[in-house]
């Protein structure tokens, strides 16, 4: 595209373009980008440059990440804001999914969005004072919360929009014109798959209006990142989407390696692909198992969970941990595959195939399953893109967006596999797409094992990878090398970068700002579950209460990556 005059400081590489825009031109710039094909809003975040070592014109900057409609290009648009005027206009009329993203920026950085329909905190509790991701906020300054927030004001707004209540002219509201019952689903609810609160207005069994509250598992990932070296962050990434820890490990390591300008040797990449695909299978297994339990199909839980248990045994043998593996490092991984891993892996794959086969036998032609899932919770392709969906949830709506296919990384173009899509976008499609993806991932894993090259697994750069233990104990250079890397961390060149890959739930991206030291200046996670959850309240309106439960399960909301 031809860059208009309002964009300055333009840098672009094959997948990502950076540009800066003045605040007064922001909406114009967004409109230009939207009309030239950048129809998807990925993420909004801010950067506090107060402590940054080199010059920036203003202490704060907003960053908008957009993706082109053909899914191949990303665009990072930056807008500087002076400290005394931290306001911009909201993007919600242009991109509906900006709603929650802007609330998060307000919550974490205190930047106000004029015209935002609901400018409330989202991750931190309502009694919180201050904005934790600002550099002046001390990381350990805790603020206890004494009571849960009242969601009735938000509900009232929703009921107003739906024309169920009206202003009575005296500052209050009329009685609802329907016989409504208000009910909290969660925060502690067996089917909420974590702690998520949804407040619903019911007429009989039908949900008339719904509002969701998240943030119950906001455990300060992004602030913690600013206080740890790059390799110390790997264990934190495990706990984002804890059902497929290894994918998060890889996504983070990949982002940092791109900033460092290094690529892993072929064997390292193959091992990563193998583990990504295995993790994708495991993630889908647990999603489907839990989703079927929500429907009362308990037997399937054991059919699907037991193969996962076998995979834990394999992962423990390889990485030393069952669930939170922390196996990747910047520039490689902790250790090579063990001898004889092929037979262990094949054993697991067979178990998975059997488990999936047994489950499908039970549900494929099961009247209850089909009636409960087909044409329920429909998200059309158009809506899914509006909501900012990605991953299996987007593909279930019939949109062919899979980064492994659209912008192949890590030799994905060498493997033979399909990227299954749905046609209706209902719960049934979201589940069957996952079943189909399990089969495809098994194919990739088998190809990985068959083609596994020999050689090194890590980059051979002593500024990135720890020296051999032998060298640490016997040579001064080795000892110094170890010392520098452990205490100071891997030094990443100054700059800003966004990198993403196809995780089990969708596009998992990291926006990293480096100040040249061994600790990131800022890390922002573009987590697929966050936007999926943002769409959930409007998805369940006008549906049955029982369907809302399986709808949530079919979206596979993982609180760890949603709340971070």
């Amino acid at each position, binding site marked *: 595209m031809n860059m208009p005059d309002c964009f300055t400081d333009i840098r672009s590489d094959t997948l990502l373009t950076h540009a800066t825009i003045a605040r007064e031109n922001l909406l114009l710039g967004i409109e230009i980008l939207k009309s030239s094909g950048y129809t998807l809003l990925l993420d909004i975040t801010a950067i506090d440059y107060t402590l940054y070592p080199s010059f920036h014109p203003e202490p704060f900057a907003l960053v908008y990440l957009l993706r082109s409609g053909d899914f191949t290009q990303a665009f990072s648009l930056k807008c500087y804001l002076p400290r005394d005027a931290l306001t911009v206009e909201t993007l919600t009329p242009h991109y509906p999914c900006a709603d929650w993203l802007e609330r998060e920026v307000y919550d974490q950085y205190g930047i106000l969005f004029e015209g935002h329909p609901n400018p409330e905190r989202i991750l931190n*509790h309502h009694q919180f004072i201050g904005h934790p991701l600002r550099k002046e906020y001390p990381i350990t300054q805790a603020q206890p*919360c004494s009571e849960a927030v009242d969601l009735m004001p938000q509900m009232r707004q929703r009921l107003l929009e739906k024309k169920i209540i009206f202003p009575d002219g005296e500052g209050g509201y009329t009685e609802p014109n329907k016989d409504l019952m208000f009910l909290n689903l969660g925060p502690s609810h067996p089917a909420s798959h974590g702690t998520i609160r949804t407040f619903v207005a019911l007429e009989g069994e039908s949900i008339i209006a719904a509002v969701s509250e998240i943030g119950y598992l906001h455990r300060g990932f992004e602030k913690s990142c600013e206080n740890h070296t790059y390799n110390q962050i790997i264990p934190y990434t495990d706990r984002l989407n804890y059902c497929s820890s290894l994918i998060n490990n890889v996504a983070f390591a990949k982002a940092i390696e791109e900033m460092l300008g290094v690529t892993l040797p072929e064997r390292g990449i193959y091992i990563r692909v193998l583990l990504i695909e295995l993790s994708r299978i495991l993630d889908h297994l647990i999603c489907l198992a839990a989703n079927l339990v929500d429907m009362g199909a308990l037997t399937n839980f054991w059919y699907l969970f037991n193969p996962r248990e076998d995979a834990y045994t394999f992962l423990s043998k390889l990485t030393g941990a069952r669930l939170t593996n922390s196996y990747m490092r910047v520039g490689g991984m902790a250790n090579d595959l063990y001898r004889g891993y092929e037979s262990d892996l094949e054993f697991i794959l067979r178990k998975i195939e059997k488990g999936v086969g047994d489950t499908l036998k039970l549900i494929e032609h099961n009247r209850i399953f089909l009636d409960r899932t087909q044409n329920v919770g429909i998200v059309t392709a158009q809506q899914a893109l509006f909501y900012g969906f990605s991953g299996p949830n987007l593909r279930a709506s019939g949109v062919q967006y899979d980064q492994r296919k659209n912008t192949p990384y890590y030799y994905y173009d060498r493997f033979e596999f399909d990227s299954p899509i749905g046609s209706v976008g209902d719960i049934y499609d979201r589940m069957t797409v996952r079943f189909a993806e399990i089969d495809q991932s098994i194919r990739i894993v088998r190809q990985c094992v068959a083609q596994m090259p020999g050689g090194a697994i890590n980059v051979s750069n002593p500024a990135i990878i720890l020296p051999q233990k032998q060298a640490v104990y016997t040579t001064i250079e080795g000892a110094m090398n170890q010392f520098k890397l452990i205490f100071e961390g891997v030094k990443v060149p100054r700059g800003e970068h966004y990198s993403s890959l196809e995780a089990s739930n969708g596009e998992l991206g990291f926006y990293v700002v480096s100040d040249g030291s061994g600790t990131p200046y800022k890390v922002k996670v573009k987590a697929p579950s966050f936007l999926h959850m943002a769409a959930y309240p409007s998805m369940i309106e006008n549906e049955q209460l029982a369907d809302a439960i399986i709808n949530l399960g079919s979206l596979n909301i993982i609180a*760890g990556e949603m709340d971070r």
Partner: protein
Amino acid sequence: MDMKNPATAVDVLGESIITTRVDAMVNWARESSLWPMIFGTACCAIEFMGVTASKYDLARFGAEAIRFSPRQADLMIVAGTITYKQGPVLKQIYDQMSEPKWVIAMGACASSGGFYDNYTTMQGIDTIIPVDVYVAGCPPRPEALLDAIIQIQGIISGNHHDKGLQTMCCNENACTPCDLVKAR
């Protein structure tokens, strides 16, 4: 059998009669059928699924009746990170559980905040509710949680002679661990 002769009757019934106290009997029933309320918030909850599944099989310890309603449960397993935002929720659910009740803090986060030493994470749930057993690990292996449940059973039966726990199960003067073992 000559039922008119009490001596023979006792001989015949032999060991099928056990003499015990009501509280020991009740505790035996309680420890053998714990109903856990799982307060799962994060990674530990996924590992808890592993504990209930076939390989580790919580049912072997009589504690497989997982309840998500605090009114129906007597053992709370806090599996996952508790943030300050979550604090009031956890406290309320704990208060809703009827006595007697026990609490397991599963994993590093619930026990101490774990490696989330920051503005949002509660540094251990024992700052708001009492905890009976802490389980180390991030997340703990299933065996560790099973061990914790066995420890809770010990606390209930009174075989666990930590200070403060004894009062829960028996009258100190009348009861020795020996009696309880016999009763079982």
